[in-house]
């Protein structure tokens, strides 16, 4: 029995950490999408009614069993489907990922005022014919079928979902329970479907071991992402990353709350070794705090730059390949700028299931061009020799370390005592437990 993947699902990316120097501190680590299991990634390029959607699939298993059913808001033709490179999404992921930056305290004797300043600066067509015949008999119209890259694509328009479902069943795809109802609903909303399955011959000929992302370009006033089918066959909650590339400004959901994740906070030094755990636990806690119904903003930035950079901004060529058709095309002979212009990237992250996200995601582009990034700061105390009385500095650092411990506990739900034990408090032992009021320790 084949497995039908009815999601806008995505590949898990493997990212390499790089170190780059930037004004807002030294970038040391990032929280990639590979932190989360079952993570899907979708790139939405939107300008007016024009949409280019790139979907990376996280299907892991025998590709022979793979097929994905994708609802699209309008009829599409062959030229509107394309195959992208995984590297594009990996780059976009790396560029927009939440990041950890570090600062080193200067010599307190040489630059005693520095701490205060730094504290303040924290603002930061194949077998198609045969398929077609079988389809007609079942009341499903296969409007087009062809091979693109390693995929066989079938564009379906069924008069009723029975046809599509029966066709899928007949072709040995396992249909998730409840799929018929959702397919029926989409069809009544004039949505179309295409099915992509792997053409093994083409795949071995092309030599790709990993499935590449599917791209669709269409024109529709529906600025949305269908997630309902994806909730049917998922085991538990799913992670979804949406990267929106627009001209004007930040993208947000109109039917769910879009919430900024806590950012620009100072955390203890040891978080550097376990930034992934930190970010995962923080995200889980924030999700619960928002009643599991929020979409989180992780990055909103003008694509022309970054500070600090978790990765370089995407090049105009990469952006065009993702569907950003309005950036300078170097092949036209125009003098293309070294940096892409007029592209604003929004990275949204949500953890969803049917109960908490019953409706598809609806988006709107806002006029907000304020930059936002998930940025976490570690500050290393001065470890060198001091030639003056540094008592005041040490006291300030201990206070800062204690503050960082509490922040970390609040953000992640980690045990405050464990955190304190892991902090190398300057001057030795952690602050006396009785520094905190006794009642703060009762119901933790």
């Amino acid at each position, binding site marked *: 029995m084949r497995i039908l993947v009815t999601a806008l699902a995505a590949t898990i990316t493997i990212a390499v950490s790089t170190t780059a120097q930037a004004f807002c501190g030294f970038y040391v680590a990032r929280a990639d999408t590979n932190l989360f299991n079952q993570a899907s990634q979708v790139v939405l390029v939107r300008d007016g009614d024009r949409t280019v959607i790139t979907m990376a699939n996280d299907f892991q298993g025998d590709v022979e069993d793979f097929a994905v059913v994708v609802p699209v808001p309008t009829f599409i033709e062959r030229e509107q489907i394309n195959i992208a490179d995984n590297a594009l999404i990996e780059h976009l992921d790396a560029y927009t990922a939440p990041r950890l930056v570090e600062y080193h305290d200067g010599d307190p004797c040489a630059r005693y005022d520095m701490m205060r300043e730094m504290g303040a600066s924290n603002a930061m067509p194949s077998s198609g014919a045969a398929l077609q015949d079988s389809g007609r008999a079942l009341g499903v119209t296969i409007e087009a079928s062809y091979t693109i890259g390693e995929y066989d694509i079938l564009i379906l328009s069924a008069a009723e979902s029975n046809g599509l479902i029966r066709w899928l069943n007949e072709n040995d795809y396992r249909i998730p329970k409840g799929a018929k109802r959702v397919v*029926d609903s989409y069809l*009544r909303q004039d949505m179309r479907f295409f099915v992509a399955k792997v053409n093994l011959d083409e795949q071995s000929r092309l030599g790709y071991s990993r499935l590449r992302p599917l791209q669709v370009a269409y024109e529709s006033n529906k600025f949305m992402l269908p997630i309902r089918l994806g909730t049917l066959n998922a085991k538990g909650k799913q992670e979804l990353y949406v990267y929106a590339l627009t001209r004007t400004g930040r993208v947000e959901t109109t*039917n769910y709350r879009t919430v900024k994740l806590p950012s620009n906070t100072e955390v203890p030094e040891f978080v550097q070794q376990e930034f992934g755990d930190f970010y995962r636990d923080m995200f889980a806690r924030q999700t619960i705090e928002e009643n599991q119904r929020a979409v989180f903003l992780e990055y909103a930035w003008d694509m022309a730059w970054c500070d600090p950079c978790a990765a370089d901004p995407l090049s105009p060529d990469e952006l065009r390949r993702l569907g950003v058709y309005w950036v300078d095309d170097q092949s036209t002979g125009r003098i293309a700028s070294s940096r892409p212009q007029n592209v604003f990237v929004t990275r949204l992250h949500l953890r969803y299931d049917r109960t908490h996200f019953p409706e598809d995601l609806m988006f709107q582009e806002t006029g907000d061009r304020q930059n936002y990034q998930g940025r976490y700061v570690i500050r290393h105390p001065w470890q060198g020799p001091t030639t003056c009385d540094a008592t005041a500095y040490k006291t300030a650092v201990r206070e800062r370390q204690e503050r960082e411990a509490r922040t970390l506990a609040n953000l992640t739900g980690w045990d405050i005592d464990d955190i304190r034990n892991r902090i190398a408090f300057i001057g030795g032992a952690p602050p006396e437990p009785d520094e905190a009021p006794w009642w703060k320790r009762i119901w933790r």
Partner: protein
Amino acid sequence: MRTVSMAITSSAHPSRIIGSCGSDIADSVTMSCGTAPGRLELIATRCINGLIANELKPDSGSATFISGMRAFTRTLDPRCYQIVVLSLLLAYGVLALDFGIHWQNAAAIVITAQLVQFIGTRAAGLARFDPLSALITSLSLTLLLRTDVVVIAALAATIAIASKFLIRVHGKHVFNPANVALVTLMLLSDRAWVSSGQWGSAAISALALACLGFLVLTRAKRAETTLAFGLAYAMLLVGRALWLDDPLSIPLHQLQNGALLIFAFFMISDPKTSPNTAVGRVLFGALVAGIAFTIQYVLYEPHGPILALITCAPLVPLIDGRIRGNLYRWQHPAGTSAGEAKGVY
């Protein structure tokens, strides 16, 4: 021709004017609108005057607590409730929901609105300056309009208040001030938008919003528009879900939208821009719901309700013209406070 219908209504109900917000200090009002603190003081004074007048009423002083409360609420200008509730919602949005409202925008909206109101009052030759309605518009705009450009915020307030003085038919302004400003700026500028999803769909806050909003409405005695809109919109959403065979959690989620509730309870309910008759208001509410639904779920464009209201607003004079039978009832509704009849501008 502009008319000051409030003067007519007020003289018809002299007993109601005494003690209602603002009417008893009308003369001093015109002169004390220079600075923001002056205005705040003025609003407080007007609302507190309602309280004092209530205490002086012989028939309510010895009554039970409930009847006392009833008398009290009857005396108070319903707009005072609206201001309090909108302020609470604003505080909730800023403090609990992180709305990201810039204080500069809020200040620009409030100050500009009062300024334009003052200029309009003078230009229209009105006897007194009434800051309450302009303040309500300011609060609605602050809650709904998102922009990072202060000038757009000020422009919104200008369009809103100026529309009240400039676009008038039969002595009533045609467009809801906040509504016309929102739509104009959303269409003209890509730097202004409405974040309709930011209230979230937590059932508890939806319920709280509805209750608070309803409180405002019951004082405004104009619940028909809201009820008709809410009922028709809910029926359309449920009907759509049934037709699509979708789970009912979908229309429920669509209805648990804070922005929708604010629209229903604080914008479409505006007594000055809804039809004069109860039948007209029901018709109007249902019409707005139908068009809002069409925009949002047939044409798949966002902000259906806000766009539907501005589309339907020019029909209000037509509805008033066609359904005249009940016009008399609006002029003499039982329990209508004087404050409701005031503030035509």
